[in-house]
Structure formats: C-alpha cells, structure tokens
C-alpha cells in the first residue's frame, strides 16, 4: 500500500472528480473534495517523510520501468511542493462551502467541485511526474479545468477573462510541447532524468537551443512573468474567490516549479546559465515585473485586482531568486513559493469573506471594515505585512534569503532595489489598511463578521504566516535542502 502512494496522490482526486458528477449533489461534492484534499495532504506528508529518510522515490506507473514507461519521481523539491498544493487545497476546500454557495448558482455547484478536483489533480500530476510529455498532459488537465472555473465568476468579464487565459495558456502549453518534441528528436527519450544524462552530448546543436527557448517561453507564459502576464489580472479579479485563492497560491507556483525543474535538472545550469545570458534576461524581466506591477497595484480600486498585480510582483521576486543560480537565491525562490502561497491565499480568502458580507471588493466599499469585521480585517493586515516582508512574518524570511542571494551573486544594487520595492508593497497594503481602520462611513449598513466556517480556515493560514516567520526550520530548512539538492544535480 505504502509503495503505491505516489500514484494514489494523483489518482484519488482524478477519480473523485467524475464521482462528483455522478452523484449530482452539492453537499456531497463539497464533502468529497474536502476529504480528498485532506487525504492528499496526508499522503504528501508521508511521501515527504519517506523522501527525507530514504532519498529519491521512483515509481514506475503500470509497472513499466523508466525510461520506457512513465516515471513518477519524488525528490525533496517536488515532495515539498506537493505538501504546499495539497495543504492549501485542504484549507481552501474547508473554507469553500459558504463562499461557493454565495457565488455560484446552486445547480452548478457539483460541477464547480468537479472542476476543482480536476485542477487539483492536474497540479499534483505536474509536480510529481518525471516524464516531460506527461508534464504537458497534466498542464492541460489543470489549465482546461481552471479556464472553466474562472468562467464561473459572477461578472460577465469572468468569461472574457477565461477566454483570454484559454488562448494564452494554450499557446504556452503548445510552446512547451514544441520544446519537448525537439528534445525528443535530439535525444530519443522523454524521461527527465534520462534527458539530463543525454542532453550534454547535444548541447551545441541549434535544435536544443530552440527547444530551450520554446520551453522557457511556454512556462513563463504559464507563470505570468512580465511581459507575459496579460491574462492574469482579469482572471484573478473576476474568478470566484475560492478559485482566485487556490490559483494564486498554487497554479503559478507549480509553473515556477516546472521552470526550476527544467532549468536546473533537465537542461542543467551549465547549459542554461553559462552559455547564454539567461540570468541577466530573467533578472531584468523580474525587476521590471516587481517595480511596474507594484506601482500598478497601488492605483487599483478593486482589491482583488490589486492583489493580482501584487501576485505578479511576487512572481518577479521568485523568478529573480531562480536567476541568481546560487544556493541562497534558489532557497529564496523555493521558500517564497511556500510563504507567498500562505499570505496570498489568506488575502484572497479574506476577500471572499468581504465579498459574502459586503457584496463588493472595491476599496470605496470597505470603509470602517476594521470595526465591522475585526477578524477579517486583522487577517488582511497580518498577511499584508507578510507581503511587504516585515520581520516576524513569513515574507521576511524569503526577502532575507533573496537579498543574501543578490549579494552572493555580486549584484549589490539589486539588494538595494529589493529593499526599496518593499516600500511599494507597503504603499498598496497601506491603502487598504487605511480605508479599513481610519475611515468610517456612518451611512453604511450594520454588518456582522463573516461566518465562522470561513474565518477559521482563514486564520489557519494567518497563524502559519506568523509561525513560519519565527520558526523556519520546516519552510526555509527544507527549501535550503531542496536548493542544495537541485544545485548538486546540475554540477
């Protein structure tokens, strides 16, 4: 049973999805997705523990051994990412019931959970697989369901946002497919570990260079690095709150994982960073993303949109860490995947609470929220502090490693820019906080705090934001080990 866990990790949500369609009951669908998420979370924790004790786990799907068959391969990095995805999913599904009842038409709710489970299993599959073509298949499973989920938003702009995302997402995935095809034509294998061995022999060919270009552009589209981010703001703004929270915390993060996996493990940092100015390109795009998107975030009137632009800036921080190609930079990237998932997940969940009580997530409508909904408002403050990177919150840890990485790399001015951009984050978080606490609106109707079933999951995330800002041996410690492992492979 234990040896089958890698397959069960993906298969359980995949089977639960059609189950929800067959049962056609919104209560049961909600329960099924909660149980499945928690089960997946437990499996991922067991797998992480096995990896920590025994090293890499290789699972041959259907008994066909790698490199011929599809291999599920778990190392420290992807088992850590699996824990993040399934943990966030557990919290989001526990939170979801009231929010989904409010935002989705009653007869479509079972379909909502079906799509959710498919998206969940797609993301788990992308993370766990050790086969390049299998990554494409799982990218499409998760993307197709996320297009449908975004289109379920109340506003009609949700549908056009989903369409834009569909077009750009498909181009990204197809670029990835071209890249994988070119790699296959040069090496005759699709298994990632096998590719890593065979690629060095053909490093100098144009086909591999083109394949690298297609794969990286495809993935960068998926993770929404500036200037390939155009699909993201509308998609996050108009999607249902639960979907925004889950996508922002996991979907772009898994794409970042794929970037690390292909950049460092498959192509290898010798090829990626020594031969071509990849580090310079990625770093300058990330800096632009951080500065431009933070400034744009300041001027937003819709808080979900503000958070979407803030997400783009945070993706910039993560990719910047990857571009450093040193231990501290990569640790910063991996730990920020975790920390940002916590704080941005919490912020979008808090927006779900605001939406259900006030009916709007515009800045002008939340005057005096600090008095009306003290718990939600306080959660927004703490998670906002983590976005800025204030000490004693999780966000500080990642910024700290990022600055160390910049110094190790010898890019001193970057360290200063990083500190200055935190001030931009301070401005956009302050705009929300100011309206919540220092403005009152005597005419506004009396409202109560959001239901407890939504506030408690929200506070689990908030508590973790603080906990992992103080006790870092799980998050930063694991990220550090994963970074060492990933850099060790490519040397």
């Amino acid at each position, binding site marked *: 049973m234990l040896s089958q866990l890698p397959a069960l990790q993906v298969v359980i949500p995949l089977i639960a999805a059609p189950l929800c369609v067959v049962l056609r009951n919104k209560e049961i669908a909600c329960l099924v997705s909660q149980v499945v998420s928690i089960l997946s979370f437990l499996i991922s924790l067991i797998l992480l523990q096995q990896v920590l004790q025994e090293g890499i786990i290789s699972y041959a799907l259907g008994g066909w051994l790698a490199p011929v068959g599809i291999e599920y391969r778990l190392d420290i990095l992807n088992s850590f990412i699996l824990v993040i995805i399934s943990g966030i999913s557990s919290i989001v599904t526990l939170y979801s019931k009231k929010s989904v009842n409010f935002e989705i038409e009653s007869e479509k709710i079972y379909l909502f959970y079906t799509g959710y489970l498919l998206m969940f299993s797609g993301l788990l599959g992308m993370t766990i697989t050790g086969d390049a*073509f299998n990554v*494409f*298949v799982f990218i*499409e499973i998760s993307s*197709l369901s996320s*297009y*449908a989920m975004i*289109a379920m938003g109340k506003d*009609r*702009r949700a*549908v*056009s946002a*989903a*369409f834009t995302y*569909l*077009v750009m997402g*498909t*181009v990204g995935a*197809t670029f990835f*497919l*071209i890249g994988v*095809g070119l790699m*296959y*034509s040069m090496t005759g294998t699709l298994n990632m570990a096998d590719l890593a061995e065979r690629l060095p022999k053909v490093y100098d060919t144009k086909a591999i260079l083109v394949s690298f270009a297609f794969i990286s552009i495809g993935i960068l589209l998926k993770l929404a690095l500036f200037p390939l981010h155009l699909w993201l703001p509308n998609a996050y703004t108009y999607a249902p709150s639960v979907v925004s929270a889950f996508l922002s915390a996991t979907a772009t993060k898994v794409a970042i994982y794929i970037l690390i996996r292909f950049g460092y493990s498959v192509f290898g940092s010798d090829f990626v960073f020594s031969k071509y100015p990849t580090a310079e390109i990625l770093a300058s795009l990330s800096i632009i993303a951080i500065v431009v998107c933070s400034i744009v975030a300041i001027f937003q*009137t819709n808080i979900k949109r503000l958070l979407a632009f803030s997400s783009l800036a945070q993706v910039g921080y993560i990719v910047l860490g990857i571009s450093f190609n040193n231990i501290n930079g990569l640790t910063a990237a991996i730990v920020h995947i975790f920390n940002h998932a916590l704080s941005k997940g919490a912020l979008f969940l808090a927006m779900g609470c605001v939406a259900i009580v006030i009916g709007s997530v*515009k800045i002008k409508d939340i005057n005096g929220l600090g008095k009306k909904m003290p718990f939600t408002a306080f959660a927004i403050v703490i998670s906002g502090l983590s976005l800025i990177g204030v000490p004693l919150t999780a966000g500080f840890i990642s910024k700290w490693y990022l600055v160390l990485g910049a110094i190790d790399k010898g890019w001193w001015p970057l360290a200063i820019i990083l500190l200055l951009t935190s001030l931009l984050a301070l401005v956009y978080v302050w705009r929300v906080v100011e309206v919540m606490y220092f403005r009152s609106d005597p005419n506004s109707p009396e409202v109560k705090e959001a239901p407890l079933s939504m506030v408690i999951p929200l506070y689990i995330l908030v508590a973790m934001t603080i906990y992992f800002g103080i006790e870092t041996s799980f998050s930063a410690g694991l990220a550090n080990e994963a970074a060492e492992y990933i850099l060790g492979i490519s040397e």
Partner: protein
Amino acid sequence: MELVISHINYWVAILLMMIGFYALIARGNLVKTIVGLNIFQASVFLLYITFGKVSGGTAPILQKNTELYSNPLPHVLILTAIVVGVATTSLGLALVVRIYESYGTIEEDEIAELDSKEED
C-alpha cells in the same frame, strides 16, 4: 533551394505555425482566434509526425519481410495532444457562446470597449 525541398515538412510546419499564430494575435473575431489556435496546434502535430519518420521505414505495423519501421512513439504522443486540442477547442467555443450571450458580440475590440465602460 535544396534546403527547402529536403526539409519540406519542416517548412510547411513553420508556415502553418506562423499563419495560426497571426490569426491568434490579430485582434478580431473570437471564432477566428479559435481557428488560429487550431492551425497553430496542427502545425505542431505535423512537426511531431515528421520526427517519427525513419527514412525507408514503413508504417509501424508488425508484418513479415519488413525490418525497418517508423518510430510510432511520436504518433502516440500526438494522439494525446489531438485529444487535448479537441477539448481546448470545445471549451473555447463554449466560452465564445457564453460571451455572445452576455455581451451580444464576439468581436474582440467591441468586448474591450464594453468592458472599459464598466471599469470604475
């Protein structure tokens, strides 16, 4: 010229890719965008099938008196990709229908104009 003729499959794939890509990025009718997406994907399918060809090899069906087969793996991969493409197309068209229902148009610039009026 020789380069073109000996690699005709690749050139056709590149040509189709560019046609599809142009149809995608030229702002216009959403259905045309989907058509562009399909052409774009089809070019990648052709590219894969080309990789699978082994010079002098026959179709990969086990039979007597043949030793050299084309590589069947790209065919299988592309079968998967075609299924994905069909799913994408149908989802895209379904979204177009819903856009038409709520906006009353499927011209991209008209939708953008309607959206900008709603912005506050």
